[in-house]
């Protein structure tokens, strides 16, 4: 198993910069997830690590060895593709054994390893079938089997679950997680699905427009998003963002001259306030800090997803327990603990208001 380092990786296609100086180290045995909206460069970055894309500038190191110029077959990494990419003319057994045969391993070793992988992935009954005779989930397991038999330095996953239906996706996600535990392998996993990212990752790398927005554990990213992009990308519904201005001693001012008390803290650099929908509770209109009318109320079973029209402040989404009796058009107040607020400056970066002198 191995540590993978990227040093100032850049990539341009015909003058268009798709990866802008990315530096990152994925530690040995770590499960690292690249996440971001489509077109953010996460797959390109993974393919560069794999060696399937050239690097325009910068270095890729595996265990401190510079592999930037090495072909994929010399990097000893395994990759699971979104489309499975099984060899259609070979049986499941031959698919799984392909890499071992390529490496000219002895016959008995190949047989043993294929049998082992088949047992782990519950593919024993399908070894002599062609991929076309398998279901989507089984194909995905063959693709994973093909990756694990080799005992590579690291595993690369390129959106491996996005072709599966919801139930199967959840199941396979758990399988991948337990695979990571049992192999203790370095894994880099690309997805656009934040649930996959949050549940699987030791560390998440959020990418946008070819740049790293933030790196950290799922909890870190969720609770202390470093910027507006990360704040809104993780969490569903998205974090509410409200324009704000410093109100000096009086806390901060929201649109419509609404004052928001943030305690004895400097409000100087704040230009945006964020709050997660689930941290807001619906109260009587009374003297709540923010008041509005319920514009939309969606029943999700365990929770209600509510959009509150808060006048000049804009729409605020709220997650509330579904037990409450809330109806559209009702006048309500929004209440939230002071420590649930996130503050961002003009350029969208997180600011931590310092206690006032």
């Amino acid at each position: 198993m191995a540590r993978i380092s990227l040093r100032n990786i850049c990539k341009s296609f015909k003058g268009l910069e798709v990866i802008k100086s990315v530096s990152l180290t994925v530690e040995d045995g770590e499960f690292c997830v690249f996440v971001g909206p489509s077109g953010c460069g996460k797959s390109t970055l993974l393919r560069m690590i794999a060696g399937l894309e050239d690097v325009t500038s910068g270095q890729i190191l595996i265990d401190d060895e510079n592999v930037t110029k090495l072909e994929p077959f010399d990097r000893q990494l395994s990759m699971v593709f979104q489309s499975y990419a099984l060899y259609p003319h070979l049986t499941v057994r031959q698919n799984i054994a392909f890499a071992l045969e390529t490496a000219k391993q002895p016959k008995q070793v190949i047989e043993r390893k294929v049998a082992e992988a088949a047992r782990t992935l519950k593919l024993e009954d399908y070894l002599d079938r062609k991929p076309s005779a398998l279901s989507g989930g089984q194909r995905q397991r063959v693709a994973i089997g093909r990756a694990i038999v080799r005992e590579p330095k690291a595993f690369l996953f390129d959106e491996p679950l996005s072709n599966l239906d919801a139930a199967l996706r959840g199941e396979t996600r758990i399988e991948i997680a337990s695979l990571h535990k049992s192999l203790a392998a370095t894994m880099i996993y690309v997805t656009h699905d934040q649930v996959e990212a949050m549940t699987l990752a030791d560390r998440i790398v959020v990418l946008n427009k070819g740049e790293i927005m933030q790196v950290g554990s799922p909890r870190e990213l969720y609770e202390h998003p470093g910027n507006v992009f990360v704040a809104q990308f993780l969490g569903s519904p998205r974090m509410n963002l409200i324009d704000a201005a410093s109100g000096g001693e009086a806390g901060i001012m929201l649109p419509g001259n609404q004052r928001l008390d943030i305690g004895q803290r400097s409000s100087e650099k704040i230009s945006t306030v964020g709050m997660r929908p689930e941290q807001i509770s619906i109260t009587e209109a009374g003297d709540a800090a923010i008041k509005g009318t319920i514009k939309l109320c969606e029943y999700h079973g365990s929770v209600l997803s509510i959009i509150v029209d808060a006048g000049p402040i804009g729409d605020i989404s709220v997650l509330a327990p579904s037990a409450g009796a809330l109806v559209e058009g009702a006048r309500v107040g929004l209440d939230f603990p002071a420590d649930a607020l996130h503050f961002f400056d003009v350029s969208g970066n997180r600011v931590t208001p310092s206690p006032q002198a």
Partner: protein
Amino acid sequence: MKLHLILRWLVFVTAALVLNFPVIATFITALKAPAEIARNPSLVVQNPTIENFVTVLTVSDRLNIYHYLLNSLLSASIGSLLPIVVAFPIAWAMVRRGYGRNILFPLIVNLRALPLIIFAVPLYLMFSVVNLLDTRLGLGLVLAVVNLPLTLMLLVNAVAEIPIELEEAARMDGARLPRLILRIVLPLCRPAFITTFVFGFITAWNEFLFGLILTTQKAVPMTVGASFFFATSGGGVQWGVAAAVMIVAALPPLLLGLIMYRKITGSMVSGAVKG
């Protein structure tokens, strides 16, 4: 329901008869004795005979049909297999590496648009210099050039149809270029190989022009040899013999087509990627 079926068969049989009339007429003529051909133009043979086939299949001092068949078999094999061997690596390089995609590929494919006769004189002169005139190899090489455009086009399509992820997966699995080509790309192109071989072989077998120009004796192909049977004994065309030789000459490509028909269609890549 029943009427519907009868009607369907009626239309089918009529169409089959009309479309295949030349072949049927030739076959029936081949079964008639010379005297009957002159007397009886109908499709019903009064005294069927295999006399004509015996004449055709008997080796005489002047005519040897086995010689022509063998010449055609060998030159058509060269003419259909060689382009595959040459075009396959080119097709891969064009599709995956982009070499020659913009200029070379259209140029080669457009070669097909040129009337072949314009190559005849230069080829004849070149062949006489390198001693390829009247050789099976020489004829085979020319037929290979004739077949190259279509072969390249079909193989380029075949390679382009293989999802790139398959090749990437093989490279991730440690396969260098030779193994990638031999174990992944080549097997997946098999239906295309069969298709191009069948089409190429039939084209090469039916080729007449270069067979006529570039061969005189040793390498005369079946198409040209067949024409020799039209005037065997100076007394005008023996239509029965001519018809028999046409039938015999048409059999090999016909059989090839029938045997390979099922393998021509069908894709190899189902199940490779999520469809």
